[in-house]
């Protein structure tokens, strides 16, 4: 599974957060995802929430979660908090595994001034494409 939330800026000046959920049926792993996942093999796109229609918009921030398809929020959430707790000592972008989840977070300098709030916005967008009803 590959969950993506990214803030994009259109040429018109409009800005919004688009979110996507991909699945990797048949794959399972712990820690680092198998080679190629998610960049060469993002999985099959199952769900999306579009505020600013692609393509060609500038990506200003992103939050990616890569995990086996059977991983749900009760496992993702504490892993994410712990990941951010560790990562916030480092300059952005951040990436790394925690448990069965692999996280990537990036944002531009302007958004980084309020990085906690930006992460909250991205995280909320992720929940819109992978809601609790999947539990």
């Amino acid at each position, binding site marked *: 599974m590959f969950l993506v939330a990214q803030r994009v800026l259109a040429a018109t000046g409009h800005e919004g957060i688009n979110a996507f959920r991909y699945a990797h049926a048949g794959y399972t792993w712990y820690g680092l995802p198998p080679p190629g996942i*998610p960049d060469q093999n993002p999985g099959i*796109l199952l769900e999306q929430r579009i505020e600013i229609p692609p393509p060609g918009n*500038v990506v200003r921030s992103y939050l990616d979660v890569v995990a086996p398809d059977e991983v749900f929020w009760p496992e993702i959430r504490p892993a994410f908090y712990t990941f951010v707790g560790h990562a916030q000592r480092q300059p952005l972008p951040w990436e790394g595994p925690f448990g069965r989840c692999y996280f990537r977070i990036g944002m*531009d300098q302007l958004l980084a001034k309020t990085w906690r709030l930006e992460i909250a916005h991205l995280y909320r967008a992720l929940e819109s494409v992978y809601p609790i009803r999947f539990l």
Partner: protein
Amino acid sequence: MIGAAELYLGLTMQLLLERAMAGGTLPDEKEAIYVDELDRCWWSMTENEQNDVEAVLAQAIDAPTELNATDTTLTLGTREPPRQKAA
């Protein structure tokens, strides 16, 4: 094993996310649970750990000026990545 400092930083993030997802504020009883846990965590740290946590929370996070990436056209059921390096 997660140390008290890492736990404190993680709880801070969790509290902020939950506030944001609740529209800005949490009910008093939920906020009180966090405050108690943060308090417990804070007083289980050494003075050095407390200073370290304060420094982490106060510091600005360095980030690139821009990400040099653009989004891509996506269709449900296909295998396209959501963004690419800008040309």
